[in-house]
């Protein structure tokens, strides 16, 4: 069985400050990892993905994430956030041939 844990349900941060959204996973087989963003009243948009290769993955809107196999983590980072980054962020994984399994989400609120 697999699981995705997002320990922080809410993260407030001031505009132009750095942010890290934490994601830990558990799986007995190799995984693909994803971060999705959901803006208010909208669908999910893929931010970035890790399939293989370099453990540092860059995505859209200045976000990046690092796959750490030993710590089973895939934390999302941005060096300087904007008001427009306020949204719900979901970490997700695919293990084997199974389907996408989501974490519970982290609400990022950027404070002016």
């Amino acid at each position, binding site marked *: 069985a697999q699981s995705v844990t997002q320990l922080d349900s809410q993260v407030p941060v001031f505009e132009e400050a750095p942010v890290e959204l934490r994601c830990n996973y558990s799986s007995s087989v190799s995984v*693909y990892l*994803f971060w*999705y963003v*959901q803006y208010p009243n*909208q*669908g*999910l*948009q*893929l931010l970035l*993905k890790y399939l293989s290769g370099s453990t540092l993955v860059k995505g859209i809107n200045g976000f990046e994430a690092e796959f750490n196999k030993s710590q089973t983590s895939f934390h999302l980072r941005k060096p300087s956030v904007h008001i427009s980054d306020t949204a*719900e962020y*979901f970490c997700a994984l*695919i293990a*084997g*041939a*199974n*389907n*996408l*399994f*989501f974490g*519970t*989400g982290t*609400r990022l609120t950027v404070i002016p």
Partner: protein
Amino acid sequence: DTAVSQTPKYLVTQMGNDKSIKCEQNLGHDTMYWYKQDSKKFLKIMFSYNNKELIINETVPNRFSPKSPDKAHLNLHINSLELGDSAVYFCASSVREGNEQYFGPGTRLTVT
């Protein structure tokens, strides 16, 4: 040129009614999915279809039935709606099982 589209965007109906939500993807993907997002933003897969065959059916009530007239469409039919069915329903598609998924904008269903 929306990749994954859903109709309607909002659906308000009374308990006991039967309703359908339509989903279309123009990406040429082989697999389509339905997810339910509850009031706490938790996303859970309901169904997935691969080449018109149901390949996953999570523990959802049999009042919910996916219908796929062709590879580009996966509609969700719900019979005898209940208050607990109120949620946002997302359609998604992927090239094949185990690949990244692209989401539609969601359908907010409210049962009164």
